[in-house]
């Protein structure tokens, strides 16, 4: 039975992450396409699309992406080519492998042999939180594996500290931080709190100090400082930190535009601002504990006014609450070296801190590192129920709710997400890029409006990346072209700028790509609209309009 559950978990985890990976989600989103083309550029030229040779931080679309996922993506593009599968392969693989690392950790450090740990593997495999992001080429999936490996070494370090473990921890921290930005804060905070608790609970400060006095440890620390130098200069203080600065909570619309404006009428503006900023951050952190995040809205698969699904489901959440209370009430033995209670609580809460420090509330992507801890706590709830007599009275309804929850998540993922959020995920641009790449040579110029959105020009995208990706445009040629432009991304005869139909020079043969509101449709003949991309709900999204009738 145990082996059967493991086999089932492996099959389900694999299918959930790899089945139709090249077509589900149907198109690449803005981050995937940006990373995909940067990786392609590295693969063919050794430089990113801006001409920077082997960068430690990728400027990309101005958000300075971490390097390791892009270099790994270059490897997968070498094997599978520049396509959706090639872009998504490593993140999905890492998400898949991470499950087994956490399962191993659970078996080795947290649970006894007679406990049904295999069910934990099943819960980890089927978590909607993990599956949804594993099918995108997001960096955080890779962090899940690196952090699992970090935990393995960290637990060894806590049980029997050795100098080589300090080195391994340093390297794994470096890799994690170069994989996903929130790891820079999460891993040291988590490690320090768990380590301090461990040292003071077991009175081990002396033994750690003696480890520090060993020449090997000193050498290792110097070696790590040397290795960390470029990381510190580029990623903590340099351009790699720009992303963190730009998304920091103080730039949040609600704080910067609403609260600060109100505070301006009060005396002691600075003090009040700090007080409100701290209160605002506290609110953002606690919002991650709200049931709606786990039950209705967490995955952001529908429009805001619609019913939706959370990062978990009702059964998981009930188990989570039971598990949390059960965990809090557990009294661990004094000689317990790896404190499951402290580790799981710290992991879950600290994993939410980097996300809470960024703008936008309840971000399931930035908080994904907390997902394994969330599932571990759910499993604690399950163990509590198993330990009770008549537990089957609750377990059966929970099983029903769990299966129904999985169906519900699948329904939202496969049906409502593509229909309702087609536009906000920038879908449609790839279809348009394919059309333009086939016909661009027939025109003097092609003008692409980067603004789009059915309600008006509220979304500004980076369409040039879709055009580059779709045509597999030679990165060397692109680098040479944009080197002569100041910050612009035009190439060949394709220009990315706002459409001003009336003021534009119509003496040339021009193809315009834009949204319906980009054009004076009353003045345009139907024959001038030579191609259009319809969203799944029938709305005419992007139009290709020529100023000449052939």
């Amino acid at each position, binding site marked *: 039975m145990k082996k059967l559950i493991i086999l089932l978990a492996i099959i389900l985890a694999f299918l959930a992450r790899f089945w139709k990976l090249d077509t589900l989600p149907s198109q690449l989103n803005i981050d995937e396409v940006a990373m995909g083309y940067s990786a392609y550029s590295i693969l063919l030229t050794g430089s990113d699309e801006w001409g920077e040779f082997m960068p430690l931080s990728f400027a990309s679309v101005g958000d300075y992406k971490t390097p390791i996922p892009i270099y790994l993506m270059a490897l997968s593009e070498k094997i599978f080519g520049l396509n959706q599968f090639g872009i998504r392969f490593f993140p999905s693989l890492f998400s898949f492998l991470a499950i087994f690392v956490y399962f191993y950790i659970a078996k080795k450090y947290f649970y006894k042999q007679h406990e049904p740990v295999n069910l934990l593997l099943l819960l980890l495999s089927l978590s909607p939180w993990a599956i949804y992001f594993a099918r995108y080429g997001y960096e955080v999936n890779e962090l899940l594996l690196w952090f699992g490996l970090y935990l393995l070494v960290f637990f060894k370090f806590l049980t029997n500290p050795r100098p080589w473990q300090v080195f391994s921890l340093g390297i794994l921290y470096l890799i994690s931080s170069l994989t996903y930005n929130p790891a820079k804060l999460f891993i040291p905070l988590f490690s320090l709190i768990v380590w301090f608790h461990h040292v003071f609970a077991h009175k081990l400060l002396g033994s750690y100090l003696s480890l520090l006095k060993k020449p090997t440890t000193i050498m290792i620390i110097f070696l790590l400082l040397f290795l960390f130098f470029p990381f510190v200069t580029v990623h903590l203080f340099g351009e790699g930190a720009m992303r963190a600065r730009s998304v920091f909570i103080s730039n949040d619309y*609600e704080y910067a535009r*609403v*609260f600060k404006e*109100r505070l301006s*009428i*009060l005396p002691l503006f600075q003090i009040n601002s700090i*007080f*409100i900023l701290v*209160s*605002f951050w*506290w*609110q953002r952190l*606690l*919002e991650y*504990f*709200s*049931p*709606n995040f786990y*039950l*209705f809205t967490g995955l952001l698969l*529908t429009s805001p*006014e*619609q*019913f939706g699904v959370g990062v978990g489901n009702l059964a998981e959440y009930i188990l989570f609450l039971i598990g949390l*209370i059960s965990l*809090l*009430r557990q009294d661990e033995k004094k000689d317990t070296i790896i404190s499951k209670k402290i580790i799981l609580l710290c992991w879950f809460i600290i994993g939410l801190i980097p996300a809470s420090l960024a703008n936008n509330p309840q971000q399931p992507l930035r908080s994904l590192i907390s997902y394994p801890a969330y599932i571990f706590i759910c499993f604690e709830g399950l163990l509590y129920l198993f330990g009770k007599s008549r537990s089957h009275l609750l377990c059966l309804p929970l099983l029903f709710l769990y299966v129904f929850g999985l*169906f*519900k998540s699948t*329904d939202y993922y496969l*049906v*409502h997400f593509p*229909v*309702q959020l087609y536009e906000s995920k920038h879908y449609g641009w790839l279809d348009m890029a394919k059309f333009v790449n086939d016909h661009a040579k027939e025109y003097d110029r092609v003008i692409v409006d980067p603004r789009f959105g059915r309600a008006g020009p509220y979304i500004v995208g980076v369409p040039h990346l879709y055009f580059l990706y779709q045509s597999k445009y030679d990165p060397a040629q692109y680098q040479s072209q944009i080197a002569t432009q100041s910050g612009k991304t035009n190439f060949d005869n394709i220009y990315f700028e706002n459409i001003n139909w009336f003021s534009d020079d119509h003496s040339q043969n021009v193809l315009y790509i834009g949204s319906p509101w980009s054009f004076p449709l009353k003045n345009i003949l139907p024959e001038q609209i030579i191609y259009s991309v319809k969203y*799944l*709900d*029938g709305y005419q999204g992007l139009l290709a309009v020529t100023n000449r009738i052939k």
Partner: protein
Amino acid sequence: MTKNKTGLSFLGTCYFLITPILFYTLVHVPSLDILPIILSLLVTIFLIKGKFFPMIVFMVFLFISSEKHLSLEGNQISSINTQRNDHQILNLPSFTAKFMHNKFDYLYTVTSHAQKYFSLSTIFSAGSYPNQINHIPLPYLFPWDIFLLIPFLKNARPSLRWLIPLSMMFFAGFLPWSDKTTFYFVIPPLLYLKFGLARQFSLINLKIQYLVYLVSFIYTSYYLWFSSVFIK
């Protein structure tokens, strides 16, 4: 420091009495203050004396306040229809749409409302009243009360009486969000919680109690000053 029968020390009682939520009602709608006091009394009588009649009166209040909100509202029906339509767009069999999207979704609305009143975020960080004007993130209880919640949950004995504040939290989900009357149904379970937290406060080191009390007093004063400026 001696403790009274309920296990609340003198300082613990003082700590209870400077809770922001008590000042909320005084600052905002004094004419309606009587309602939460009555509701709190009803719950307290039930919890201490174990008499059911006050709870029945409470539930009647709740039922009257919920008015038309015990059934699906227009926007909820519209949401269900839109989602069924999504199935049609993808040419899926109609039974899948009916199975997935039906009146059971109302449970989600109820839970969603209840969590708006009683989530950690509302209680300990941003329970601004009335909520449609999101002035500044100020809580119902003190932000640091959350640290008392952990020992409170750890030491709490499971009891059927717990079901009452829990069910009140759930039933509050039937009430329209941002309604002034609703707010007063939120107060009794929160006071019940605060009472438990104040008892927990009474158990900590006396010096820390004084320090926390001082900080709390300053916080409440600051809080009232803010409220007086922003909430008219």
